[in-house]
């Protein structure tokens, strides 16, 4: 079974974009078509390697690669388990679309330093897939830190004083989180003597309550910053100063999901649901996530800037995943894991639309969008699909994942969380629907005829919107997203090596 090229598939999946970054840097602005070819090629290859592992992973094969020893007994090791593959699959698939979209966006907007942009984006994707497929906590932390650092040049891309200021804020958050994570990892190493992820957790309860609570707090900060859990979220809306493809792929899919993915690993594979529940830590986590969901929605309503509104929406939706995981019931966890994928598809659609509006019309505010649906019907139609999905209407991916989280909450007897989840659907509609309602149902003399953005941008928008719908109607049809998510949860429940 494990022979030939597939034996090292996780490694190739990580390396594909890392090598592309080098090629991009050396090709440079002079040969920009060749440079973009590297990006596209790497994104296809990367996705290919991950997608090729799916059938095997569903059949119970675990592709493992172990490189050098990082610390005594802990190797730099990758293992394609269902949980990791789920995240890697969604990130790498959306990278393909983002690559096309970025070409349209960067060239349409005549952005500077495009080589750095494409190279760093590729590095970020390497790190994302690396941490998704990490077999142990140290490997995870390693890629997590690379991801933090590699995002910085993208955040300051504009190079205005404001961008630098936000970049500094971002670094303070990211580096603090990274250090805290290293500290937590060291504590775990001390307490458990191993760092290998195990379904159902590997932390020994005998480590003592004080140590375990400290570990939890350190990891809460470490993952919470990236995952935008309040009160650690404030860098994320600020980071929207980055170019829209970055906001779309990194600040809706890869980087922020790395944080919530961290929570999945923490609850499912480090502490284990049993220990989390017994210590009452899951209640704390769920409570903070629920507060974030509600508050973020209210703040989103107050934002006229479209990207800021989407950013707060992201803050809220990330906490759906955290909440799903923290509820600890298998159904809720499945919903949370699946929400990683569905939210990615829906939110990237919305960001893509925001970017198209910016590049094509220079619109950044919701209040400017009156009647734009007539000019850009495809873009705004896709926006409507994404918005409806995030609100959780039946037929969209968002409906399924939210339903499972609610159901899981019901199974666990958490009535309060059920109410919050249902109410937040309405809140989502409250801040997202006005956007496309304005675009379609108000008229403006400026917009009379059809005039869409470049197909480099519109194409990916259509694909992601379609994906959002498909995930709701046939969740297992494309790339077995649902099947992989189910496998991931059974790995937690069953215990043992994931």
């Amino acid at each position, binding site marked *: 079974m494990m022979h030939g090229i597939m034996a090292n598939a996780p490694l190739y999946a990580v390396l594909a974009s890392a090598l592309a970054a080098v090629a991009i840097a050396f090709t440079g602005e002079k040969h920009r078509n060749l440079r973009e070819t590297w990006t596209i090629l790497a994104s296809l290859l990367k996705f290919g390697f991950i997608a090729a592992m799916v059938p095997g992973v569903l059949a119970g094969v675990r592709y493992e690669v172990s490189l*050098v020893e990082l610390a005594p007994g802990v190797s730099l090791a990758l293992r394609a388990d269902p949980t990791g593959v789920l995240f890697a699959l969604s990130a790498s698939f959306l990278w393909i679309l983002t690559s096309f979209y970025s070409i349209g966006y960067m060239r349409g907007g005549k952005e500077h330093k495009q080589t750095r942009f494409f190279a760093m984006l590729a590095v970020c994707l390497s790190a994302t897939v690396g941490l998704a497929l990490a077999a142990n906590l140290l490997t995870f932390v*390693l890629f997590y830190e*690379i991801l933090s650092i590699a995002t910085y040049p993208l955040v300051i891309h504009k190079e205005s004083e404001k961008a630098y200021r936000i970049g500094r804020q971002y670094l303070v958050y990211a*580096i603090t989180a990274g250090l805290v994570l290293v500290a937590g990892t*060291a504590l775990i190493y001390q307490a458990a003597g191993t760092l290998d992820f195990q379904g159902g957790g590997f932390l020994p309860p005998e480590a003592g309550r004080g140590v375990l609570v400290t570990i939890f707090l350190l990891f809460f900060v470490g993952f919470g910053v990236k995952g935008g859990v309040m009160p650690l979220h404030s860098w994320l809306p600020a980071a929207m100063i980055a170019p829209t493809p970055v906001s779309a792929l990194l600040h809706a899919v890869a980087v922020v999901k790395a944080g919530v993915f961290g929570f999945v690993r923490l609850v499912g594979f480090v502490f284990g649901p049993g220990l989390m529940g017994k210590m009452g830590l899951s209640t704390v986590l769920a409570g903070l996530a629920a507060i974030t969901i509600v508050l973020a929605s209210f703040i989103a309503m107050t934002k006229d800037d479209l990207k800021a509104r989407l950013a707060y929406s992201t803050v809220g939706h990330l906490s759906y995943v955290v909440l799903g995981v923290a509820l600890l019931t298998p159904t809720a966890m499945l919903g949370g894991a699946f929400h990683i994928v569905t939210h990615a598809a829906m939110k990237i659609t919305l960001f893509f639309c925001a970017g198209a509006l910016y590049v094509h019309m220079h619109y950044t505010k919701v209040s400017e969008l009156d009647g734009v649906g007539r000019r850009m019907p495809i873009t705004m139609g896709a926006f409507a699909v994404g918005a409806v999905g995030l609100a959780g209407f039946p037929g969209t991916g968002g409906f399924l994942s939210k339903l499972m989280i609610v159901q899981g909450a019901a199974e666990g007897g958490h009535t309060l969380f059920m109410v919050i989840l249902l109410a937040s659907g309405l809140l989502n509609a409250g801040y997202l629907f006005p956007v496309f309602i304005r675009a379609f149902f108000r008229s403006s003399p400026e917009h009379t005829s059809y005039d869409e953005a470049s197909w480099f941008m519109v194409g990916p928008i259509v694909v992601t919107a379609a994906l959002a719908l498909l995930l709701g109607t046939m969740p297992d049809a494309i790339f077995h997203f649902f099947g992989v998510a189910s496998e991931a949860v059974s790995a937690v429940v069953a215990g043992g090596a994931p």
Partner: protein
Amino acid sequence: MSHIPVLIPLSLLVSSLLALLAGLRSPGWGHKISLGGVSASFLFSLAGIRAVLRDGMPLRYALGNWPPPVGIEFVLDSLGAYMTGIITFIGVVVLVYAPRSLARETPGREVYTYPAMLLLLTGLTGISLTGDIFNLYVFLEIAAIAGYALLATGDRAAPVAAFRYLLIGSLGGGFYLLGVAFLYFSAGTLNMADLQARLPDLVENRAVISAAAFMIVGLGVKMALFPLHFWLPDAYTNAPSAAAGLIAPLMTKVAAFAIVRFFLDVFPPSFLTEALPLVSTVGWLSAGGILFGSVMAVAQKDYRRMLAYSSVGQIAYVGLGLGMANPVGMVGGLLHILNHALMKGCLFLIGGSIRYRTGITQIAEMRGLGRLMPWTMAAFVVAALAMIGIPPTAGFFSKWYLILGTLEAGNWWWFGVIILSSLLTAVYFFRTVEMIFREPEEGDPVARIGRKRGAGVTGVGPSPEVQLGLGGATEGEREAPLSMLLPILVMGAAILAAGLLNVAIVNGLLAGAVAHAGG
């Protein structure tokens, strides 16, 4: 009897003398001989590492065939092999780098600089290898005197700074010598192995206790242990870049190593932790030094001064590891000797290249360097990330072992200090990174340099691209000469390699030596 232990310092010493004689006739030959000598020493060090790894026991060498304790003994054990490997590697790299940089910064003094560099390396390797505590003093002073000479050749303020260092350093050396005398009178031997055998019976002896205190204070001055660090920032800031690149990574580390040597191989295991808890004092002072150095580095505007204060903080990591007095913490401290030597050496050499190409020493003027010298700046980013402790660079792994050490020791304060100082390090390095990769503005030094060169190429008013030296014709001129760039890139690569190979280094050379640390 293998001659490797003595060949390592001897090849340096001999070529130092030859280089001086040859250099007086032709400066070029002085450099060639120096480079040859240090390369030979590096190869001997590699052979030494191989021999130690193969045999699993130290190579002992009785100087002049006088058996110890009468004669002086050289002992190439795993720690000694580790240290000489680091020292001679940095030596080779810096000597490749030095000629162009010295010619620009201290023209006409190269003839004396190379022999002084080799003498410094002789002293440092000698300290790492000797098995005799008086001989250690001799090598300590050889290294110190060569160091004063090197530091004094720098900028206008350098002689004063070096003179201050000389006064303080001599005091430190004097303290150490006093300790040696006390030990000799109470134990009757100077040989380390002999002392280790005899001292357990003498732990109550007042003379032995004061000897230990004198020695640690003396070596503490030499390693710039806070608050005995005050000679360091001025001395490093004004030194020639190549000399700083040689001294900053090595000199204080070797003094710290000498303390480790006394802790592990001379005094009884529990003597410095229980009878006379000097080790934990060193640890607390180091914790203070880490914070002090980091805070001061944040406040600096001069690149070299920032690195100097950073060194005060970083050397203290070695002291902190020692202070934990447990194997994993000691491994962290010892590993940091290598990691910091690579990182700080790389950073000082980068500073020299920047100065060579642009004359810039102030961080605020560095805007646009990322365009002018992309390769050098890529190495800078790697070194800076390593200083902060971002994986997979080397800096992460020493901090990892140190953090584990604090947990083992149950010392949460030190745990907090490591985390906090990493944050501060991030502040002062990212401030520089941000500046380097900004676009140069009209009137910036970097833009001026670009214009001069650009105008020569196009003959007309330079376009922005040409101004920055981006035109194809000026491609090769942007970076420092290859003899300076290559050492920097080698160091950058070594920072990554040392990180990924840390387990091999730890298991091969360090873990065994510290296995019984702390009793």
